[in-house]
């Protein structure tokens, strides 16, 4: 199978994730979109590693997974706290830190 298809898929997934981050208001959805982007990147890394036959991309993918796991923990905690205080998971309402 053509390895470029993997990269194409990764690009599509990344675009969907970015679109989700930019247009959705629900924090959970935004969060899922971020995860989608991260995994799209992972896919690209792995595909690239396969293409070049080196381990660099695989190592980078592992790093991304670890960071993503940590980010999920912190991010979800923040979202839950915001939901408890404001009774809403809309990210547009959490806009107090501004000029």
């Amino acid at each position, binding site marked *: 199978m053509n390895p470029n298809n993997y990269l194409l898929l990764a690009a599509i997934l990344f675009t969907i994730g970015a679109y989700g981050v930019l247009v959705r208001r629900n924090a959970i959805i*935004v969060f899922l979109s971020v995860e989608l982007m991260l995994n799209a990147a992972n896919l690209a890394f792995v595909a690239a590693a396969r293409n070049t036959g080196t381990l660099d991309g695989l190592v980078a993918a592992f790093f991304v997974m670890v960071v993503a796991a940590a980010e999920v923990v912190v991010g979800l905690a923040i979202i839950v706290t915001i939901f408890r205080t404001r009774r809403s998971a809309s*990210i547009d309402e959490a*806009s107090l830190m501004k*000029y």
Partner: protein
Amino acid sequence: MIAALIGLPLLGAVVLLLGGRRTNAWGHLLAVVMSASSFFIAAMLFMQMVGKPEEEREIGQFLFDWIAVGAFQIPFGFYLDQLAIVFVLLITGVGTLIHIYSIGYMAHDPNRRQFFGYLNLFIASMLLLVLADNYFLLYLGWESVGLASYLLISFYQQKPSAAAAGKKAFIVNRVGDVGLALAILLMFVTFGTLSFEGVAAGAGLAAPTTVTWIGLALLLAACGKSAQFPLQSWLLDAMEGPTPVSALIHAATMVTAGVYLIVRAHAIFDLSETARTAVVIVGAITLLLGAFIGTAKDDIKKGLAGSTMSQIGYMILAAGLGPVGYVFAIFHLLTHGMFKAGLFLGAGSVMHGMHDDVNMRHYGALRTMMKVTYATFALGFLAIIGVPPFAGFWSKDEIIHAAFGQNLFIGLATLLGAGVTAFYMTRMMAMTFFGEARWEQDVKPHESPAVMTIPMIVLALGSAFGGMAMLFIGDIEHWLEPVTGFAYPQNSVSKAVLIPITLAVILGGAGYAWLCYGRRPIPVDAPTNVSLLTKAARADAYGDAINESLFMRPGQYLTRSLTWFDAKAIDGFVGGIAAAVGGLSARSRRLQNGYVRSYALTMFGGATLIALILLLVRL
């Protein structure tokens, strides 16, 4: 011993000024005691000096190194020679008499203690000025005298005119001080030292132009302190101070400092014909200008102030004549110190009896009411116009004699000055003590208490006999000769001819004044349909108007334009930058809108941009 001379009055000033109200009860007595003990020390030192042979009379006292920076070495030391001691005796002697007089004169003033503190400060500053052994220390004394005069002239500080007069004296003096500062700087650059000896020794080796410039700068300094043309305008306004202050400024301290400076720096003036000529011209102009102003003043103190200008003009002129004149400048200074102090104290006594009225048109016929004041004032009057054998005759006649030796016109100027002096002093006598009484209602003239009349009597005796005593017993020419040098005037008119002429001129001036003011009734209000000359003299020869139009208004204009430039250009530039930055940030902070999604968009935009750039560069 020398340090004690200065230290005692200084201590008095410190105690009185820092002691506050606790010293109110006895403060004035302390001040008198301090001044008097300083006089006694001076008398002792004088006796010691008289007992020594001529070449051992100078004594010095080194206290400590004041400033020591590399080659710039200024010791804090005193130097007492024949010139300094006569000044010290005059300052402390006349100063003490004025202190005693002030006990009576200021008896009802709530700030009497402060007044005496300032008087002591004045005496101490003036002593420091004449006892310093280098020009830098002299400068310290010079400035302290300026400070003390400012404090005393504006003593009645609740009166705006007195406050303004004090400021005026201080500021005009600053102009002269610039001259002294320049002279000192030039001296240090040229000679590398500021001690009197070092400067005198180095003067002969320096470039003649430099010496001339130093002399001219010193002349500017002398003009400021001694109220000489063109810096004379402060002296007449200085009459706003209490009368004893006027006596102190005009007789014992302050205005004599300029004469002292020129005589002390005679090594400079001996070498520079130009500087000496400038000194003579300034002296001649001032002696005529002062006498001219004195003729038209109705204010008794301002009349005397004009007279002081004129007499100091004589001294400056004599000092400018070189070795033929230095001695007589000092001689006239000493006799003037006595009779002018006596005249001022007399004027103060008259004012004391007339409810502080200074207008002579409200006086008249006071000779029967104030016998002592009349008698002492009359002796001072005879001394100042130069009637033999009173003090002023001996000194003024010598100056006129020396002036004729220099130049016919200068001689004629001094002669004319003598005539005008006789005119305005006779006018003053006639308006004050003779004629019919023109007193204001409910003014009852009375003689002053003994504490005031005794100093006046002492000074009157000095005016009567002081000149003879100094000339014949003290032999003042030869007393001062080791310090200043002395030469008999050459090519002058012989004294046998000159003295009768001088006396005739004096008699003419006095007689004319008597015709105008003694024989005719004096209007109570000053006549307004007077000649232009009288108007000019009443306006102090337009000295203030000239200063205002030449210096004050252009100065104000300059200040205003600088303020405008500062506000518009400099503030505009700096403020404009700040406003631009502020406006820009007010707009750019709107980007921080708090919406996560817009931040995310920015991040994507940025990332895309970077990716594009990377791609473009790679391609």
